[in-house]
């Protein structure tokens, strides 16, 4: 399953790149893309584990970029 989320307040292009790298290293994430200009996160993960993976992604984002919020 592939879904897009709005990333609020992602401030710098470099941070977006780092966040993307970090999310891609998470368990269960097949592919993650962070688009800095569109403030968008596109996440691909298995259908049955999607919510679980998403919860991990949200938690990681809170650690890496506390200012930035994933809007579901």
């Amino acid at each position, binding site marked *: 399953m592939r879904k897009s989320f709005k990333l609020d*307040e992602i*401030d*710098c*292009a*470099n*941070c977006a*790149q*780092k966040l993307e790298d970090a999310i891609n290293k998470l368990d269960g994430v097949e592919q993650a*893309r962070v*688009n*800095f*200009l*569109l*403030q*968008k996160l596109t996440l691909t993960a298995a259908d049955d584990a999607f919510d679980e993976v998403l919860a991990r992604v949200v938690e990681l984002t809170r*650690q*890496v970029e*506390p200012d930035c919020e994933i809007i579901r």
Partner: protein
Amino acid sequence: MNKKQRKWRNRILIALAIFAVVMVIDETGVLGAAFGKPGDVYASFVLFLIPYLIAGYDVLIKAARNIRRGDAFDEAFLMTVATIGAFAMVIFPDTDPHMAEGAAVMLFYQVGELFQSYAVGQSRKSISELMDIAPDYANIERDGKLVEVDPDEVQVGDVIVVKPGERVPIDGVVVDGVSQLDTAALTGESVPRHVEGGSEVISGCINMTGMLHVRTTKPFGESTVSRILELVENASEKKARTENFITRFARIYTPAVVFAALALAVLPPLLGLGAWSDWILRGLTFLVVSCPCALVISVPLSFFGGIGGASRLGILVKGSNYLELLAKVDTVVFDKTGTLTNGTFDVVAIRPADGIDESTLLEQAAHAEAFSDHPIALSVKQAFAGAVDETRVADAHEESGHGVAARVDGRQVLVGNDKLMAEHGVAYRDCDMVGTVLHVAVDGRYLGHIVIADVVKDDAAQTIRDLHAAGVKRCVMLTGDRADVAASVASEIGLDEFHAQLLPEDKVDAVETLLAGEANGGKLAFVGDGINDAPVLTRADVGIAMGAMGSDAAIEAADVVLMDDKPSNIAHAMHIARKTMRIVWQNIVFALGVKIIILLLAALGIANMWLAVFGDVGVAFIAILNAMRAMRVDKS
């Protein structure tokens, strides 16, 4: 400015005010009078710490957090080290104090960051305006009332209602209503399109005049507007080589400068080349310039702007890499039919025999062809101004491969080629024009002939001129048509080369040969209408599909998609690609140039920290402003 930015601005203003007051106190010697020596230095240290912390506490926190995660090399870290370093110079009492500089660097950095954030916000806004073609609801009739629903919920085959002023949310066919559609957002074309019952409508168009009932033919997710948005959004995933280069460069650049700064601060004083304080200060200045942000933001932003700007003209570019390739194109290969010509048959000349007028000739031909629906017959009937009265026609039949014969008003009318005339012993006149020639004879008397040909598009010749002016060396046409037809089209619009009588697979071979002839990194673009050109579109460096509005196959196969069928958009696309690449390189050269100069000056001890901060945030700000130019395209 959003709420966060306003708070940020106010914080910076307060810090600036306090900084100014502290500066005055420090300069006027009040501290010296109150605390004596060296107490005054410590007092001013504490005072400057106030605006420093107000302005930069978030930067310090961010740096600390990054260090904890073991991921230190970012701007916040560099600024923290540089400013704390400046404050720490207080332990070298032999030098002038640098607290003012430390606080000022942080302030200046924050001002620059705020500007940068504002500029990014602005470009995001322009981008979302660019993409604001997706309707967020569809009207459905339920129990006689109109209800707004999420377009995702509409099933294929449902009837939706589009009111005047609204955007068509989903592709479909009009079942009821007549209106004009504004397709400018999709094609850049400003002339509205007329639709009525039975017409196909494409999502993203604005309904201008009348209420339309539309039976949907696709789900929302597969409708044209959704596909276009997806395409433009995902375009940034296919990165240009320049973009990848910048990313790799940034990864090396920052650590390299940090270690260089360290070496600069430590080695010379160890070798006894000067005071510690002097070299540490130079090292710190070095650090401030080391952030590659100007490039990391402005290069992708330029590409995005170029792609976004192009999409406003109805030119969809599927990735930054294609924009980069398009800028290097020096050979453009065209398919003829449907690309340079309209792909339809039109009457291009009417040449009556002596004593006959044009309308008589057309009238006879149109009536003889009354019952035929061959493309040639259709174009003759279309050219005839009056209505065809079928009751005047009897005994119409095809003369296989040669033309038609019929009795019109009781007289025998023959319409066809040379062979038909020869067969019936009619003395016909030869024609010097290229195309399909229809001779007309009534009761054995020759009336003249009508020439039918595929018409070259209005802007085809201009396109070739524009491409040549833009530095394209060869414009080549490939066609399955006869050589004389191809030659006439080629000379009419000024092509450099043409290959005629090609089978579809020959086109691939022809493109291969042309590709092999490319020298010095020149690229080849192939332009076709996308219907049966898929192999060639894929083989070319850049495959351009024309007239793709509503054609899934073309959107799929091509790298660049022109929504309408005007070849002049090829020249526009190349123009945008070149402009984007110019902006990208301007930014790269400018940002790196300024940084390298400041690094050199800093190493020599000429540049101070103020200049270094300009080298970081100032350059980033200017580069972003420059990148935003890529988004602006002339509609002309």
